[in-house]
């Protein structure tokens, strides 16, 4: 410790203090002897132990944004970032046309070129533009992109998505799709207005798409994104072509263990969605075995990318 207190002394003093106050007005009878502290735990050692592929990363148009993401990756030992730039339109007044789609995908292509050994590109679309979407898939795949990231323009089970899903089935690529499940956004008892876009995909929409296309690969975004992860995992249990990534700012205890218990150890992918500390902390704090953590941090997603020829060695 700083301020001149050594570790052993601090432990002893703390126990004396804690035991003392507990015993002061009661018959607590706590001992106050010197007891060794717990063995040291090297958290950064654990962090570095696992190779990591972030299955849900983004880049934005802010100057220096991709450098910022790479810096987080360097800090936390993340080897590969699967990067996309979906059209989020949080304000409701932002462009969502094909021009914006191309602009977004070009940003990802730029990041791929800038950090070829770190960034794996995922393309985005607005499925309302059917013909242009199919052409954009060709363009982006030709340029080396490895998968898809969709947002809230169209629900995943909308017929507008059918030709797109079929195209990604042919390409053997996974479709990462924003999804949500909270009060006000489907899933259960809609009693509140959560302010979400009306075409936000809910877990039931994923199940619908997965049943229609059992050969498709659907990645439900961010079980830590603030939605009800217990609901999601229970609903997806019987649909082996629905995968989940663990990203999001919510890092509740038991999320990862619960997900593995319901989905198995092969259908979870480590992800951050910009919440880099939570993404790693919640997996390391889980009760999973080292082998299971290794699969979730890297191998599971790499195996998915391998189907389309975009895995890393």
């Amino acid at each position: 410790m700083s301020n001149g207190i050594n570790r052993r002394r601090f432990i002893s003093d703390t126990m004396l203090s804690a035991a003392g106050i507990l015993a002061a007005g009661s018959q607590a009878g706590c001992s106050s002897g010197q007891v060794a502290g717990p063995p040291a735990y090297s958290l950064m050692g654990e962090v570095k132990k696992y190779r990591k592929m972030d299955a849900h990363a983004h880049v934005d148009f802010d100057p220096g944004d991709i450098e910022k993401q790479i810096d987080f990756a360097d800090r936390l030992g993340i080897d590969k970032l699967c990067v996309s730039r979906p059209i989020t339109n949080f304000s409701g007044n932002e462009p969502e046309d094909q021009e914006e789609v191309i602009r977004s995908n070009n940003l990802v292509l730029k990041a791929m070129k800038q950090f070829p050994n770190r960034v794996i590109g995922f393309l985005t679309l607005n499925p309302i533009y059917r013909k242009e979407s199919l052409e954009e898939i060709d363009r982006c795949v030709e340029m080396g992109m490895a998968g898809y990231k969709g947002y809230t323009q169209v629900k995943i089970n909308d017929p507008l998505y059918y030709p797109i899903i079929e195209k990604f089935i042919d390409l053997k690529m996974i479709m990462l799709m924003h999804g949500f499940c909270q009060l006000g956004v489907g899933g259960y008892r809609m009693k509140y207005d959560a302010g979400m876009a009306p075409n936000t995909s809910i877990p039931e929409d994923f199940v619908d798409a997965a049943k229609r296309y059992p050969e498709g690969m659907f990645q439900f975004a961010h079980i830590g994104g603030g939605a009800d992860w217990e609901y999601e995992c229970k609903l997806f249990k019987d649909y082996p072509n629905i995968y989940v990534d663990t990203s999001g700012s919510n890092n509740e205890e038991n999320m990862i263990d619960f997900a593995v218990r319901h989905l198995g150890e092969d259908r979870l992918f480590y992800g951050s969605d910009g919440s880099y500390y939570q993404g790693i902390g919640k997996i390391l704090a889980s009760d999973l075995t080292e082998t299971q953590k290794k699969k979730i941090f890297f191998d599971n997603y790499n195996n998915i990318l391998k189907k389309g020829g975009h895995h890393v060695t």
Partner: protein
Amino acid sequence: MLLDINSYVGHWPFKQLKYNTCASLVDRMDKYGVEISVVSNLNGIFYKNTQSANEELYQEIRSETRLSNRLIPFAIINPIYAGWQSDFEISIEKMGMKGIRLYPLYHDYELTDPSCIELVKMARDRKLPVALSLRIVDSRQRSWMDLEKEWALKEIIPIIREVPDARYCILNVANSTTLNEEETEILKNTDLLFDTSGRSMNELPELLRIYGENKFAFGTHSPILDYLTGLLRIEALREKEVDEESRELIRSGNAGRMLGI
């Protein structure tokens, strides 16, 4: 060494918790090298008479030496419920609690309620920390019976204005940390600690630059949040962002000073 200033035992009515007993908390501490934890009983958020929760915690801690050696209890006091002054006195003097936690949103009062101000002044006079959690759970995935409201950092300023010389622990800083210059100065000039459990602490390097290393302390918000993310934010700091002495202050030194141990 590690001193966690933000842990709980007890139940959350809307979701099963793991590691929510004193024994399982200490097991968790042993596994991850945490020597001391400040702990409160979640049940006190939901009991109308919070003192029952404090008594439960006291009984559980005193049941085993290995628990009483490692856990520092904070009492949950509801200053608008009958007998709260007595609850405070008994919790501190008889049960040896070392601080208090307040839950105005759940207990339905304002932070500037006269009774709350009186309680905070009582804690101040004993040099006891007053802990305020900006949220307990992520309200986006709450139960339909739970609260929608969460606090931003700005919303705890009024009680600090009322009792500026008290000691505060600001926990689970999960929302906006945006303050104007005057509010920032208030926090800088107050004896307070932010714990590292909340998602806004992802910007810890920048927050350290603003507030300095004496304002932060390791916290888990366990067992609601995972046990390691709050620690990861500290351990992943680079040497150019925090020297080893300052890192130790965040791991335990600042909390030890505030707790008087």
